[in-house]
């Protein structure tokens, strides 16, 4: 035990050495393993796949990126980004009422319960929650049954007939994909918005009313701007998560591919790791841009 003590004193006198020892394992892990593999990935995107031999040619070049710009691939990118934007917007619309209620009207006890009600699905298995929708949206599933009972089957058929977003069944269509995306990411949007709203002191709203603003104006001019960082923070999650996902489109989508699926497909049996790597650069680039913009809006204060 005394040798441990003298070691302790030795380190006490050399705070930088002690710090270095503390940092070494996590930095080794994250720095080398994680950053290293990210670097390797980026590097791979500059290699290309030789069409004839099917082997990856380890020479730097932009061939793969040129391949990325093919119309079919651009379609994939466009489709994914559009879905991400749509999901984000919907999530904001659905999240705001709940966040606002929890922050402004709920008693502390109710607020804790509401937060719990939002957090629980968040952690209770994302994959399973996607699976829920596969069953709910099925042709003879509960949603179709509900539509039928309400006499709205015609509306459902009409929706499914729409090109581009419809499909043979809700559970195999972009609409279904969209619904599932909103469902799984919604808590990620609610929590930051709620945090941002909770941080608004009630005296600000009182001051606004005192100065003559009606509730609508107060909401527009005081609440919304102050909630914006929370919205930005939440949208970072929903955007980023949608951009890279292959599970939801895989489970509920039709044959149109999303970036996540393209990556999975290309690096798998197709063996075209460079192209898969290049595809991942898209979400990274989009997110970098988004993060930069969000930082300007002060989103990181809300995290």
């Amino acid at each position: 035990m005394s040798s441990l003590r003298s070691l302790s004193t030795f380190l006490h006198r050399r705070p930088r050495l002690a710090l270095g020892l503390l940092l070494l394992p996590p930095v080794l892990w994250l720095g080398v393993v994680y950053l290293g593999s990210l670097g390797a990935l980026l590097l791979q995107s500059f290699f290309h796949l030789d069409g004839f031999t099917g082997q990856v040619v380890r020479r730097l070049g932009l061939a793969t990126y040129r391949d990325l710009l093919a119309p079919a691939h651009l379609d994939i990118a466009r489709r994914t980004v559009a879905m991400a934007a749509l999901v984000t917007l919907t999530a904001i619309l659905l999240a705001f009422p709940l966040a606002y209620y929890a922050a402004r009207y709920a008693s502390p006890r109710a607020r804790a319960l509401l937060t719990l009600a939002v957090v629980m699905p968040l952690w209770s298995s994302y994959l399973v929650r996607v699976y829920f929708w596969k069953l709910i949206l099925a042709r003879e599933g509960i949603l179709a049954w509900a539509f039928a009972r309400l006499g709205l089957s015609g509306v459902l058929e009409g929706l499914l007939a729409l090109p581009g977003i419809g499909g043979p069944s809700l559970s195999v269509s972009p609409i279904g994909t969209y619904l599932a995306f909103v469902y799984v990411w919604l808590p990620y949007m609610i929590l930051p918005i709620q945090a941002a709203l909770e941080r608004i002191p009630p005296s600000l709203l009182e001051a606004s009313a005192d100065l003559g603003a009606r509730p609508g104006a107060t909401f527009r001019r005081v609440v919304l701007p102050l909630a914006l960082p929370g919205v930005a923070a939440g949208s970072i999650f929903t955007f980023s998560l949608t951009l890279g996902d292959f599970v939801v489109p895989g489970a509920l989508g039709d044959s149109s591919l999303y970036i996540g699926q393209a990556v999975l497909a290309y690096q798998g049996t197709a063996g075209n790791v460079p192209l898969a790597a290049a595809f991942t650069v898209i979400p990274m680039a989009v997110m970098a841009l988004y993060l930069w913009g969000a930082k300007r809006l002060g989103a990181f204060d809300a995290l």
Partner: protein
Amino acid sequence: MPSEATRPRDRPRAPLALELAVGAVLVFLHAPFAVILLYCFTTEDASFRFPPPGLTLDWFAVAWGREDVWAALGLSLRVAAAATVLALVLGTLAAAAVHRSRFFGREALSLLLVLPIALPGIVSGIALRSALGLLEVPFSPLTIVIGHTTFCVVVVYNNVLARLRRTARSQVEASMDLGAAGPETFRFVVLPHLATALLAGGMLAFALSFDEIIVTTFTSGQQETLPIWIFNQLTRPRQRPVTNVVAVFVVLATSLPVLLAHRLTREDAGR
């Protein structure tokens, strides 16, 4: 906001429309689980017809007898346990370092510790896969653990750092002042302060790992964790209710630790 809770002011009633909206969103979030729970009992094999043609308890027994379910469950548990332990050690070390001193690269380290969660899972997944490929490491439970640890560290780090920030510096100084060197101070004073944060972080990390699908897809070969098993079942209509039973079980298994973790760190959230 503590003052708001203690001030005896009348809380305004929310407009009815708002309350209805809140109710609707809550139903949207939770109804699906109820539906699946119902489907665990349906007699129909493909199990999505509503209303269910009949009710039975058979599927629970069938699920119990499935070898592949048990294998997947076992692997998930082992991986989650290993990743959690590693994450606890690495995350605590990093949090201690970041908390104790300002050093060159501190900001960079904090950013590094957010990346595994901030970057889309697919990026992490394929990055790890290509690194493993380059190093010619074969896929195995170990590679899955490596992938999981990388993001589990983040969760533990955040929890421990938040707790460290809440601990007065004078606690450590008092211990040293009274004659305890580093190891004893850690054991008698710091660890008790960290205990619930470590527990919460560990449970969250466990739940994260147990549930993870995206990175796992890339870092596993033939191995099937439970989420991978479910994923493979998604496109197979055979014996759906078994999948339902497993799904319900997974929800319960991951919700409970998270619930506990939430209670343990309630004070940290500033209630």
